[in-house]
């Protein structure tokens, strides 16, 4: 039963107030992309045992999508941040690196 703090309204929401949305920072591939690119975008999602970046919506709250960095092996939450970004904030990445020295970094 996760709790995640919504970066927009500051509510420490519990999982039942949230809607999970899968991998964060997906790059959309539309017409003109290769089959491989499109397949990668749609289906071959990251599924690491460890640090993961994902989407959540504060569905029973402000309604906004936000992003979370979380460890899928311990459920530790490193931080949450607004969805309007194409990669995790640098300071968050540094924080994760400090906690998980073996983490290969965001790629």
């Amino acid at each position: 039963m996760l709790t995640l703090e919504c970066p927009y309204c500051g509510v420490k929401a519990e999982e039942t107030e949230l809607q999970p949305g899968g991998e964060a920072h997906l790059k959309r591939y539309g017409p003109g992309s290769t089959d491989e690119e499109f397949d990668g975008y749609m289906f071959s999602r990251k599924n690491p045992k460890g640090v993961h970046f994902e989407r959540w919506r504060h569905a029973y709250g402000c309604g906004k999508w936000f992003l979370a960095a979380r460890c899928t092996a311990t459920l530790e939450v490193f931080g949450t941040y607004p969805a309007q970004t194409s990669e995790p904030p640098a300071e968050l990445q540094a924080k994760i690196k400090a906690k998980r020295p073996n983490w290969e970094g965001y790629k």
Partner: protein
Amino acid sequence: MSKAVSALEGVSHKGFAEVAEAGLRGMITVRGDLASGAMKKAVKAATGTALPAPRRIVIDGDKAAAWMSPDELLILVPYEAAQDTVAALEKALAGEHHLVADVSDARAVFTIKGARADQVLTKLCPVDMATLAEGEIRRTRAAQVAAAFWKSEAETFTLVSFRSVAGYVMGLLETAARAGGEIA
């Protein structure tokens, strides 16, 4: 002839707290840039209040403005005033990218009254009632549906849900407030 009726026509139940459907209320969703001067003016024009801070509701008599999300407010006015308020808001926001929608008929409003009113919500909402701040509006869920509530007076909470689930919400409130269910 008043053709407009609220979802439950004011039904109420008395348990260890009194729960009642509070009738029709004018409500307007406003989306736009909350930081803009026009928005400030629009709210002032609509409710006479200041723009609410995040997660807050500012109440002035029978009008109020509530913060719903970083780009959304809910304006509360008497039901009869809703259309004029929409017009006023539209006027104030003209030229800005915004959206104003009358949602008065899409909602149901409830009051929960009594010294133990908070216990009713404690059973339904995953919210720490003890840390509910003065003037805070909390958007959350009540059992299985979306709801928002705030402390409207001493020992009284106002809760808003969608209109279609008014019967369900009343069922929840009535059951939660039933005598014997006091959380000692």
